[in-house]
């Protein structure tokens, strides 16, 4: 009995064991293959990383393998960093930092090179070595980006800079001495005849003093029209002029195009002319400027203003031509149209026929018809503001209002007839249809969908979205806050630039990529098709001076190097090539004034040499072919080991020399 039971037990156990072994034999190889597969096939990787199908689609739309190039380049301002960033789309790879208003050592900007450009931006002899870059503008030909120039404004000090897109370097900084801040810039006219810079906070014209209580009478607004000389690649100061405006805090401007070419539109947000003073019992600015029911869209006839300027009717303010407000009114250069209170942005549609203004404190975007504006001007407006500027009746110029959500700010456009407005408070991007002929009359004026973004979105940029023919496809939301989007790096967090797919119609929009921007706040950006940019691979000829964009007569050729002396003035003529600088010994005296030219005679792409002299605060980036001249006083004796700061070759560390400064 027992043995029989035992026997059956053994049989059962044996059978179970046999089954287990069989199962193991069948499963194990499979398990092993899948274990191997975890490092091989993408589905498994996606599963392990918790990526959804939508994530994988986003990855497929943005991932740019090594060696593949981006389709678009986005130029983004870098806010209080005083710089501009060039970012590739759709990969969102940072391609280049361009320093504009602030010294930057990588480019050597302000450390021996580009000093004269920075100095152009000094005001009344005051050194200003930073800027608050806000709105970049690409040069245009017939309303299309032409990829040649980039302009950028400095809100803090009311300055505008010119960047040459052949070498992505800043060439010029200008300042209108009549005013000290800006915001509504830069925007260009459709053929880049003018770069528009709208001022922001009301000030006494010319930098004078005036008591704040006299705000209405003594303070003004201003808009500057910088004439761009394309052949010279510079703003022509003598052909530029400004227009005095009421002190309404003009905000953002845009140039008319096609049917509205020759006109400029700016929103404003202080028609109340509030002047603050919370500590004196006055309403604070945030309440005072929002009190009234309406503010004013400014409609400026640039063509007529240009004629008035050329006729000599502008007055001289600190050497700059300004058309006074009375002359502006007399000549019908300015009209106002009411906007819902404290709005933001004034964005002209691709065909130039409408202007969209975000409500900011109003949930609508208000769309004005340029045809209606023209008709209302022709009919002769009956209303006037306190200064006598004609005011067009809202109902006579308004085409549509679309309720979008909370905090509508900026609007950009695509190729499908949609408009996109950032909703700051909702942290979302609203896609809405332009109900007019030529856009989406089939949908009418209506909200299509809202894409949540992270977080507090400011500007938007769409591919070629400011041109007469937007590309659509990609939209970038420039979010002010990132909160939890990235690993914490302490209390100061980066901004978050989010790439959004807008290629599909209806409510199919998708966030594709988050890009942290550290170093500053990109306010606005423009996105250009990459093939329109024709940047040089190396400077065209050896001895190139990037400021004149021609061969520098002082450039040093190999074999002509040396150190010469004329009294206390010492001239150093040096060449740099992998992996040596010539001469390697520079012997001077304490108290000498040194003028040093260094020419990178390289022709190979990327063969950039740096050049640093310790103690003397010199650091250059000398790109292939470039020649740089810098000066300094040899105030301290000693031995200074100068060297190449850009790793150039296997013998880079050997690329150095000694500057011997003999004591007096």
């Amino acid at each position, binding site marked *: 009995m027992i043995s029989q039971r035992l026997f059956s037990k053994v049989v059962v156990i044996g059978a179970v064991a046999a089954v287990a072994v069989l199962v193991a034999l069948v499963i194990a190889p499979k398990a092993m293959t899948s274990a191997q597969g975890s490092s091989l096939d993408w589905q498994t990787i996606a599963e392990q990383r918790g990526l959804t199908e939508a994530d994988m689609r986003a990855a497929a739309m943005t991932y740019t393998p090594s060696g593949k190039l981006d389709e678009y380049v986005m130029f983004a301002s870098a806010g209080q960093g005083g710089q501009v960033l060039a970012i590739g789309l759709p990969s969102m790879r940072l391609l280049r930092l361009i320093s504009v208003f602030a010294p930057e050592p990588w480019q050597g900007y302000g450390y021996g090179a580009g000093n004269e450009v920075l100095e152009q931006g000094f005001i009344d002899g005051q050194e200003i070595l930073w800027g608050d870059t806000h709105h970049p503008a690409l040069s245009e030909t017939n309303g299309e980006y032409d990829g040649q120039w980039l302009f950028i404004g400095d809100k803090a000090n009311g300055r505008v800079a010119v960047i040459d897109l052949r070498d992505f370097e800043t060439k010029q900084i200008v300042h209108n001495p009549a005013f000290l801040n800006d915001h509504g810039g830069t925007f260009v006219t459709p053929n880049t005849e003018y770069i528009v810079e709208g001022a922001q906070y009301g000030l006494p014209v010319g930098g004078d003093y005036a008591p704040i209580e006299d705000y209405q009478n003594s303070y003004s607004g201003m808009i500057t029209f910088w004439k761009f000389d394309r052949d010279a690649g510079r703003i022509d100061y003598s052909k530029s002029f400004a227009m005095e405006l009421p002190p309404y805090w003009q905000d953002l401007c845009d140039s008319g195009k096609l049917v509205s070419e020759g006109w400029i539109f700016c929103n404003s947000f202080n028609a109340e002319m509030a002047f603050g003073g919370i500590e004196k019992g006055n309403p604070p600015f945030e309440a005072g400027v929002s009190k009234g029911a309406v503010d004013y869209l400014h409609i400026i006839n640039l063509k007529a203003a240009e004629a008035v300027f050329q006729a000599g009717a502008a007055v001289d303010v600190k050497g700059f031509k300004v058309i006074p407000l009375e002359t502006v009114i007399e000549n019908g250069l300015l009209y106002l149209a009411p906007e819902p209170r404290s709005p933001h942005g004034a964005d002209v549609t691709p065909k130039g026929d409408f202007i969209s203004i975000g409500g900011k404190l109003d949930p609508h975007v208000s769309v004005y018809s340029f045809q209606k504006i023209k008709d209302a001007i022709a009919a002769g407006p009956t209303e006037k503001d306190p200064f006598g500027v004609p005011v067009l009746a809202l109902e006579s110029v308004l085409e549509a209002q679309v309720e979008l959500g909370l905090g509508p700010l900026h609007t950009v456009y695509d190729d499908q007839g949609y408009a996109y407005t950032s909703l700051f408070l909702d942290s979302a991007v609203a896609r809405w249809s332009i109900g007019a002929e030529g856009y989406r009359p089939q949908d009418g004026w209506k909200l299509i969908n809202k894409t949540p973004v992270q977080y507090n979105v400011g500007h938007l940029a769409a591919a070629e979205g400011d041109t007469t023919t937007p590309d659509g496809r990609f939209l970038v939301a420039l979010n002010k806050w990132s909160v939890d989007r990235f690993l914490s790096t302490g209390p100061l967090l980066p901004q978050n630039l989010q790439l959004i797919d807008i290629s599909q119609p209806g409510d199919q929009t998708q966030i594709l990529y988050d890009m942290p921007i550290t170093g500053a706040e990109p306010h606005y950006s423009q996105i250009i098709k990459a093939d329109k940019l024709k940047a*040089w*691979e*190396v400077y065209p000829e050896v001895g190139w001076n990037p400021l004149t964009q021609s061969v520098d007569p002082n450039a040093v050729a190999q074999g002509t190097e040396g150190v010469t002396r004329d009294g206390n003035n010492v001239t150093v003529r040096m060449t740099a090539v992998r992996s040596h600088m010539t001469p390697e010994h520079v012997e001077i005296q304490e108290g000498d004034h040194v003028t040093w030219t260094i020419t990178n*005679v390289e*022709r*190979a792409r990327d063969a950039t040499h740096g050049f640093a002299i310790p103690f003397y605060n010199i650091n250059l980036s000398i790109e292939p072919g470039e020649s740089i001249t810098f000066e300094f006083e040899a105030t301290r004796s000693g031995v200074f080991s100068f060297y190449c700061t850009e790793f150039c070759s296997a*013998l880079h560390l050997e690329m150095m020399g000694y500057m011997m400064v003999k004591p007096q």
Partner: protein
Amino acid sequence: MTTNVISSTNTSASRASQTASRRWLKWLPSVLFLGAAVLLLVSISAPYWGLVLQAPQYPGGLRMRVFVNNMTGDEDPRLDEVREIDGLNHYIGMKSLYEAAKFERSIALPAVFIMAVLLVVAAVWRRRWTWLLALPAFAFPVVFLADLGLWMAYYGQNLDPYAPLSSSIQPFTPPILGEGVIGQFKTIAYVDTGWYIIAAGSLLIAVALLIKLSGRLVQPKG
């Protein structure tokens, strides 16, 4: 055709054609000489020889093209490849390429022109010995490569012992045709369009000389 004509029988019809062919044949070497002269002059505009250097940090490679009287890089003048190769060569102590074959380059254009003129003279001035005037042009492709090879050997063997990489790169003879390796660079040397043109000229001259020679051998007496 040629052999047919030469061995043709003497019927009256064939005699007529024979005479015509003879006349044609008599002038053919001259035509070939003139053709070779034209090819020589045409060759000036094309590179004779080329060298490609490939290394990871030069994705498109570095290409040097040698014309009969000068050296250039690839078509885009902004990246001067000769200068770049020269710059790289200084690490191994090689002399500057701009110093190479200066004499040959200085006389190259007049020499090509004279060779072409000699061919024309040989074509129109038909004496027993004038074929000798075609010999310089005939030998030119070989002479060009031989001179190039000598210079390459001289450059490769005479490296500056104080150069940065003198301890790791020993003197060597770079190949004038085919592949080589130097440091991280793979080199590919090849003859280019201009050389093929002068080689075609040599071929024409060779055919012309053969015709002349065979014509002499089978020339009927009287």
